[in-house]
């Protein structure tokens, strides 16, 4: 772990990404404590509608007079929890499937991998929209749709790694000393295969935040009055271009968060990728 | 007679994350025309850095801190990168790599790859365009036939994976000789090969040296191969030449304590497998005295304080040890 962090320390963009991710994480955890007007998650103040940025309201106010700064801060928790739920659900489905398909071989492996290919071919947004229509739009339907479309990425990565690792000498040596299959798969292959999974998950977090925002924007995700970044941009459309701050600050929040996860993921990939391991 | 290659007091160090590593610390050797010089040392002694220094392909962060490299009367260290590229590497110094599979690009035909080298590096004979290419093809075909590659014309049209390890090594020997160099450097070219194939390649190299009048610098860790192939021998320890002389004189009567200890480890000669106690000094902290002193069985007080001078053994080898000063 220490050498990974040290290598990451030399990679400026990755450090920037890590910084952003940590800040977003802190904001998400402490949200209501940091926001100047935590009650603005739901309240409406019709007297101060659409005020431009000022000392009292750094990001201005929205059409219901709510402090946008507070709502951006409060929105971090929602965005992150959607992302974490989706990615961990996808991992929980994808990683075991990849392990089984990679280590077992035979018809089971073939079946799993063909199903994976089929699911991979479905566009994420389209399935999410269809599910939202089917189940009535909500955060839950968005999360379900995203999880159901994201797991194949993990299956493919873990499958490839497991195939490579189970042909490797150390697995052969373990079989030689009589290690059982669960021991080999879970204690040896899984830890060795986990680095690219973490990379993919990091990038996946950013990606999911973006897609969740798109769903919110389309009205298929978060429902008002939730302080959702995508929803805020959708609501702001009516007041553009006059209330420019209404769309700009939630948009920047999405941009910076997604960029942070991507920079961190790219940095991690450079460290983990064996082809790049020699170059510093 | 002027030696083809003469390296004197070569010092190379590399800047790493952990500090300055002294890789070569006074390496000297001479290779006469038409001879085969074996360079022997254990891993990490600086063999490959020596090759890279001579060919001018030191890795990033490495610098030559002292010494000279004379090749056919010219100081290679004074050459620019462009001069080395167009006028020395491949055209006047050929190279045979250790792993023939890594040295060939799997997606191109063998002929394409060898002709590309000749296109840039073959000596100018006045011909141009297709005529020049045809001459190159003819030369490659005759070279491959000499290397005992069956059906050379077909071989040029084949891909690297279609050859066995031994045949691939023959292709690369042909590539090294294609531009008629005066010096060929071989980096452990037979370690990946089977015994009988290795034997064939060694015999082939001997014949080629005599036929083409080239000089061969043969880097290896295997004394058996040296005994089989080489005329002269240069033993390197921790970036220093410790003993140079003819193969017979050194194998029959090794003078330097390191050479003696190393030969005593060879299964053909060992009385008991004791190895050499201790480890090679770290390139980051080389001792001030003799580099082998901490492991030497004959160590004297003088050895620990100052670098030993060059001496001469009774069999005529140059030895870096106070016993022969």
């Amino acid at each position, binding site marked *: 772990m220490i050498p990974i962090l040290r290598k990451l320390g030399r990679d400026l963009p990755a450090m920037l990404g890590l910084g952003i991710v940590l800040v977003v994480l802190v904001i998400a955890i402490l949200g209501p404590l940091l926001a100047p007007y935590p009650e603005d998650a739901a309240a409406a103040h019709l007297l101060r509608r659409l005020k431009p940025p000022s000392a009292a309201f750094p990001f201005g106010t929205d059409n219901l007079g709510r402090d946008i700064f507070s709502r951006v801060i409060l929105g971090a928790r929602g965005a992150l929890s959607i992302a974490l739920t989706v990615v961990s659900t996808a991992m929980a489905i994808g990683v075991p499937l990849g392990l089984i398909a990679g280590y077992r071989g035979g018809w089971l492996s073939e079946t799993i991998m063909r199903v994976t290919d089929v699911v991979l071919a479905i566009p994420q947004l389209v399935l999410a929209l269809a599910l939202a229509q089917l189940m009535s739009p909500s955060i839950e339907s968005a999360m379900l749709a995203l999880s159901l479309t994201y797991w194949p990425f993990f299956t493919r990565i873990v499958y490839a790694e497991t195939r490579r690792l189970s042909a490797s*000498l*150390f697995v*052969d*040596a*373990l*079989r*030689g*000393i*009589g290690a059982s299959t669960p*021991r080999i798969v879970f204690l*040896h292959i899984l*830890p*060795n295969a986990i680095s690219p999974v973490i990379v993919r998950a990091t990038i996946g977090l950013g990606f999911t935040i973006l897609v969740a925002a798109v769903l919110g924007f389309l009205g298929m995700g978060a429902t008002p009055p939730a302080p959702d970044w995508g929803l805020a941009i959708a609501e702001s459309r009516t007041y553009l271009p006059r209330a420019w701050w209404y769309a700009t600050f939630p948009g920047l929040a999405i941009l910076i968060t997604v960029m942070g996860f991507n920079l961190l993921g790219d940095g991690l990939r450079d460290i983990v990728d064996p082809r790049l391991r020699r170059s510093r | 007679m002027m030696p083809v290659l003469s390296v004197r007091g070569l010092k190379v160090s590399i800047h790493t994350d952990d500090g300055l590593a002294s890789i070569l610390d006074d390496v000297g050797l001479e290779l006469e025309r038409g001879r085969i010089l074996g360079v022997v040392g*254990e891993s990490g002694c600086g063999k490959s850095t020596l090759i890279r220094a001579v060919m001018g392909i030191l890795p990033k962060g490495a610098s030559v801190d002292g010494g000279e490299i004379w090749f056919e009367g010219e100081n290679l260290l004074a050459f620019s990168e462009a001069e080395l590229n167009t006028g020395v590497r491949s055209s006047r110094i050929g190279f045979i790599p250790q792993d023939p599979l890594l040295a060939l690009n799997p997606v191109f035909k063998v002929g394409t790859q060898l002709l590309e080298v000749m296109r840039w590096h073959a000596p100018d004979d006045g011909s141009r365009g297709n005529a020049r290419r045809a001459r190159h093809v003819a*030369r490659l075909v*005759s*070279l491959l*036939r*000499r290397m*005992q590659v069956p059906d050379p014309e077909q071989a040029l049209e084949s891909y690297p994976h279609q050859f*066995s*390890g*031994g*045949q691939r090594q023959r292709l690369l020997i042909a590539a090294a*000789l294609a531009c*008629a160099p005066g010096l060929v450097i071989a980096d452990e070219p037979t370690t990946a090969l*089977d*015994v*009988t*194939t*290795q*034997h*064939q390649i*060694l*015999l082939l190299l001997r*014949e080629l040296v005599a*036929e*083409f*009048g080239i000089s061969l610098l043969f880097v290896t*860790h295997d*004394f*058996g191969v040296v*005994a*089989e*192939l080489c005329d002269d021998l240069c033993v390197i320890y921790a970036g220093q030449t410790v003993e140079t002389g003819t*193969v017979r004189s050194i*194998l029959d009567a090794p003078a330097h304590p390191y050479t003696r*200890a*190393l030969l005593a*480890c*060879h*299964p*053909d*000669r*060992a009385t008991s*497998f*004791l*190895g*050499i106690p201790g*480890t090679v000094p770290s390139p980051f902290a080389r001792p001030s005295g003799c580099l082998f002193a901490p492991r030497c069985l004959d160590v004297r007080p003088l050895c620990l304080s100052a670098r030993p001078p060059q001496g001469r053994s009774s069999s005529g080898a140059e030895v870096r040890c106070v016993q022969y000063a």
Partner: protein
Amino acid sequence: MTPEPILALRDVSVQLGGRKGLLRRTVPPVRAVSGVSLELQEGEILSLVGESGCGKTTLGRTILGLQRESAGEILLDGASVGGLPSDAARRARRTIQYVHQDAAAALDAWWSIGRTLAEGLLIHGVRDAGERRDRVVAMLSAVGLDPASARRYPQEFSGGQLRRVALARILLLQPRVLILDEPTSGLDMSVQATVLNLLLDLRERFSLTYLFISHDLSVVERLSDRVAIMYLGRIVEAGPAKELFADPSHPYTRTLLAAAPRLSGRRASGQSLVRGDPPSHATALPGCAFFDRCPIGEPACQASMPPLEPIASAHDVACFRAAPSGAAASVHHRATTARSAASSDIVSPLRISSAKPSLGTITVRQ
């Protein structure tokens, strides 16, 4: 009467690969090992020698049980342990262990050495963590490593140290037979010497029997009690090491011995000993597999496979032209020599003229 061998192979054959497919192409299996019989006496070192692709590693894995034999019998202490799927085979043969050639790749880089060593004990039923720790520490010192190295990771060790780690890991399982796959390849000579020394020392201390797989004839000659030479999945010659090195009988053995680079130096001959490259299994023919490269082959060799037959006590050779020892043999040898056309070339395989097409005609201008 020799005592019962600790391990015996009777006519073992192994087929590799092969696939019958509905959706995919059917691939015929490759016969990697054909009809190998071997006996390993308790405490001896038997070397299995051959070039890459001769089946020596496959044979090692088959003895271990990781590869299933397609025919033949494997006896451990006289009891059959053959014909089992790999899990059952490993259980029945837990007193046989295998030490990989590439010690670094055989270790999980994510696990510390101590944890890796203790894992073997755990698998073999040592439940008490304290006992595991004690035995790991004791074994690390036994192979000449600092017990503190238990906390370190494989990347922190040198090649020689990793071989010691690999040996410690296997020896903790209290094996009786060790299959050592090229245990010194890739090591520097001074390190190789210490590893060989350790192997000899451990054999004494733990009363081990070694099956030593190697292509380094210098090491084999020094270390082995007996040697078996493999060519294309078959044993072509087997006998006591001293005898085999002093008086090799099979033309392939002679070729191999003559080709090995030795300190004694350059041989009088400047000519190739053997034509061509080691063949692949795809080219296997009904007759002797070595025929197309053999300097003394005759038509009979192409018609049928020469069986492995004794020419002296405990010395077997699979060659129609091999000279049995003794007076009758030398007469026979002279007779066969006279019969073949190329006379003097045959006597010493060192001077067999190899096919060098048109050597003199090609001169490349410098």
